[in-house]
């Protein structure tokens, strides 16, 4: 027994180096694929943006067109995300805690929604709100589709399930008896929601909201399909510059800004989430 116990660390010490090597070998192929398919094109895009030196950058960044698009993009993304959080939380609470037949079916539909392409929502909007659409023919063309609000409403419609999915999971984890006790202490639904339910689903809310913010920042299909005149976002601008006007360097500048924006937001979200997780771990 004693001999075995002594020999164990020695054996481990012998095995450690080859294990390390084999582990990095396994990491290599995915890293290569990642470099080939993701990093390389990005480097090309970045390189292209500098074909005219810094002049293109200065020109694009300085243009009113770009700044308007940047502000619009952020406005739409933030408004859509807030809308998604409100609608998603409301629906998730109803599905999770208000007993009604078919709650399971609806929760399944939420999953199905996640699988649909976003332009489908935009398409359906043109059928509903467009000049020839259901509402359009009733009240006349209100011009709603041409406003950024149409994009926001469409994005809320499409991205709400992305908020609901993690929320439904988190809410299913809350023990019913906690809500029962809260109610028996005289807590009304609003108080129970605020003090018991929401604090427990905060991580899910943050994850869903962060994902939605990232996705709405980069949303292209809905904006393109609705073709709203006043609604030029950064992805739209890239499309216009690159595909319509063949101004590749300018398109690449905007694309690089878009990528930096996304990565920056992603890093910020990760930091925020891990800080939250760290605080919880420290308390546990």
């Amino acid at each position, binding site marked *: 027994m004693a001999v075995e116990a002594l020999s164990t660390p020695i054996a481990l010490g012998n095995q450690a180096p080859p294990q390390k090597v084999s582990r990095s070998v396994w990491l290599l192929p995915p890293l290569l694929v990642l470099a080939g398919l993701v990093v390389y094109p990005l480097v090309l895009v970045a390189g292209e943006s500098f074909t005219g030196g810094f002049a293109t950058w200065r020109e694009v960044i300085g243009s009113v067109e770009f700044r308007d698009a940047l502000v619009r993009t952020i406005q739409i993304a933030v408004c859509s995300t807030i809308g998604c959080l409100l609608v998603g939380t409301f629906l998730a609470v109803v599905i999770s805690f208000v007993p009604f037949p078919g709650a399971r079916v609806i929760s399944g539909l939420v999953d199905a929604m996640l699988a649909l392409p976003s332009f489908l929502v935009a398409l359906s909007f043109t059928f509903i709100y467009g000049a020839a659409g259901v509402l359009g023919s009733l009240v006349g063309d209100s011009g709603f589709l041409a406003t950024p609000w149409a994009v926001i409403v469409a994005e809320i419609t499409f991205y709400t399930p992305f908020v609901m999915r993690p929320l439904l999971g988190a809410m299913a984890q809350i023990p019913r008896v906690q809500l029962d006790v809260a109610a028996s202490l*005289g807590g009304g639904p609003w*108080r129970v929601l605020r003090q*018991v339910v929401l604090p427990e689903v905060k991580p899910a809310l943050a994850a869903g909201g962060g994902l939605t913010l990232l996705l709405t920042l980069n949303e292209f299909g809905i904006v393109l399909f609705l073709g709203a005149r006043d609604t030029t976002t950064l992805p739209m601008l890239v499309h216009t510059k690159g595909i319509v006007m063949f101004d590749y360097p300018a398109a690449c500048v905007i694309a690089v800004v878009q990528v930096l924006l996304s990565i920056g937001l992603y890093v910020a979200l990760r930091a925020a989430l891990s800080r939250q997780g760290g605080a919880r771990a420290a308390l546990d």
Partner: protein
Amino acid sequence: MTVRLEDVTVRFGQTVALEGLDLTVAAGETVALLGPSGSGKSTALKAIAGFVRPSRGRIWLAGADVTDVPPARRGIGVVVQQYALFPHLRVADNVAFGLRAARKPKAEVARRVAEVLEMVGMAKYARRYPRELSGGQQQRVAIARALAIQPPVLLLDEPLAALDAQLRADMLGELQKLRREVPDVAIVYVTHDQSEALALADRIAVMRDARLVDIAPAADLYSAPPSAFTASFLGGANLLPVEVVEGGVRLAGQTLAGLRPQAATLPGDAGGASYQGAGRSGAGGRSEALLLCIRPHAIKLSDRVGEADAVGERGEGGGATAGDSWPGVLVGAQWRGASSRLTCVIDGLPAVSVQVDVPTGECLPEVGAKVSIELPVEACTLVAAEGR
């Protein structure tokens, strides 16, 4: 405030968790629900609290039908078996939850929270989160949270189960004090632990298989258990098969004089819900299977060292052994601190072991020794055997 349940039945799908419960708890009264695991105690509590809706029956609070009233408007204090503290609120905020929901002024909330936390001995943990507490500490916070709102009805589901013996005794004392301080509160107290039930309850309700078996004042239930189940569940009584004979009962071929079956244990008008006739009876059901019930501490043991051949000596009417004594053998002994639990077998009744408690300090026979087992007639009662 009086709580009244009338034929309350709770079903979960196919499972019947509670069957036709009739129970009244008067204001100021404490009723303990006692029963084995899965007997429906928690379900009864949940029905009173409004957490589950009975599939049949009505529930009344202070004369008003609350069967369809949501928990929030019943004003009942509940301590559930799982504690169910709110994990994101500190101890003090957990306790304050009900007070804030009732929109009490800030100063009063603070005063009351400090008061109840002091009472359960958790004052110095007020700033902690529930996950930073041990199970027993969480349980005490849950009790404090229910007490804070000064409810007229208090439902406690095994509130002391996670505490050690010392703390349990302390909390039991606190609960007894609480009863004296708030005399009008009606308490339903669920427990596995018969000593808690005996210490706290005015009446004990024994449950089994989703049904109420017996309900009576604690002392009555203990001294004269109405059913075999209650006798063994409450206080672990010995149950020995006997036959009724002229002038008493017959146990292992020997007559115990002076013990008469009471009316309640007689077949026909058997009130005990558990009683089911064992068939095989003659005229009038007089020879129904009966069990002699005696508590382990009431039995007296003595050595039979002097007797050379006990089996041979035991004649038909109980020859050599004195009046209420039976010859037997000691087969096991377990030291339990203040007393020892001895297991004996009466000669001629090998299938039934007899538990005897002997206070520590008395000299004990050796395991395997022949003993004489004395059953004092005043400590014996008769209960109907269950025909299952």
